């Protein structure tokens, strides 16, 4: 009886210890690889940081620089977080090792990137959908209708935030011709001109 009573907890204790080690061993690299510094350790990511710095999403409302993970990795830790980490992580490693990271097809990348930007990350900063991006002025009537449709109050659009709000932080060459990307494009072209000098 006593032997059996001791044996069972010992088994469970070992299992628990293994679980803790596995979770800690997984959580630490997961957290460490969710930093801008880690992203920038691959040289092909530089251009995206350069674009981000000239974008409307360069700094938040406290003038703190916005990191890659704030948009590209789900804020809440859970199944979605793990999925994004695993899928995007393996994709990035694969392309870095076996792809051609210097000449990426950004047109093909856009839908993939947008697919894995979750709405909760946008809503973390932009809570009031009746106000503009800074939360100051009211948005246009059309914009209000769109957000009502998004909130399922009036209509039911299934597009997420990034389904309508394109080029918030990155602007590939082929998108720069749109007149509503004018300002962003101008800032980017100034940047490249500076670098050439």
């Amino acid at each position, binding site marked *: 009886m006593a032997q059996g009573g001791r044996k069972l907890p010992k088994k469970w204790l070992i299992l628990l210890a293994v679980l803790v080690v596995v979770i800690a061993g997984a959580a630490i690299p997961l957290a460490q690889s969710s930093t801008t510094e880690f992203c920038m350790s691959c040289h092909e990511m530089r251009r995206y940081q350069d674009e981000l710095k000239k974008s409307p999403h360069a700094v938040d409302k406290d003038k703190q620089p916005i990191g890659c993970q704030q948009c590209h990795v789900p804020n809440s830790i859970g*199944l979605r977080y793990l999925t994004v980490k695993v899928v995007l992580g393996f994709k990035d490693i694969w392309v870095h090792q076996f792809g051609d990271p210097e000449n990426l097809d950004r047109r093909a990348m856009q839908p993939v990137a947008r697919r894995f930007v979750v709405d909760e990350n946008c809503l973390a900063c932009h809570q009031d959908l009746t106000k503009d991006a800074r939360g100051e002025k009211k948005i246009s009537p059309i914009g209000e209708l769109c957000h009502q449709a998004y909130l399922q109050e009036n209509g039911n659009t299934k597009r997420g935030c990034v389904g309508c709000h394109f080029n918030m932080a990155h602007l590939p060459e082929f998108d720069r011709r749109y007149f509503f990307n004018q300002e962003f494009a101008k800032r980017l072209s100034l940047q490249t001109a500076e670098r050439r000098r």
Partner: protein
Amino acid sequence: MTATGDNGPKPKKWTKRILWILAVLVLAVGVAVLYINLAFPKVRCQAVDHLKSPDQLGDCFQCHLKATPKVAQDWYESKHGVMLVKCFVCHGQPDGKGSVPYAVSPDVNTTCRKCHDPSIKKMEYKYGLKPVCTDCHPFHNNSLHHKAYVKPVAKKTVQ
């Protein structure tokens, strides 16, 4: 008899074990792929539903004023809207009739050419072509009103 008895079950056990491991692996990958597609759908637009329920076939614009207000209004005010180039001309019809396949994002190289072939050829001869029409020419946003006389950058930067 004994030799075959010893050798018989052993490989069977191993093949069984490998089969089990394989089955679990395949199941795990399958569940993972299913979850990824459910949690992060490739196409978030539910236009696919139009194919399933025939009652969803009707006046695109009336419904899309609510479903996608910006797109609907942009189209309404655009040159395409003013000329009454209706949704189906580019997006096709859910029942699959007509020459244009039903698509959320139509293949610009074929749908644009249906009407604009002469001007595309002219542009190609003069300037060469960018790979995708919509890189320079907005399709829903090419407005007559609002900033009608502010020419989009697109038209200026084409060399």
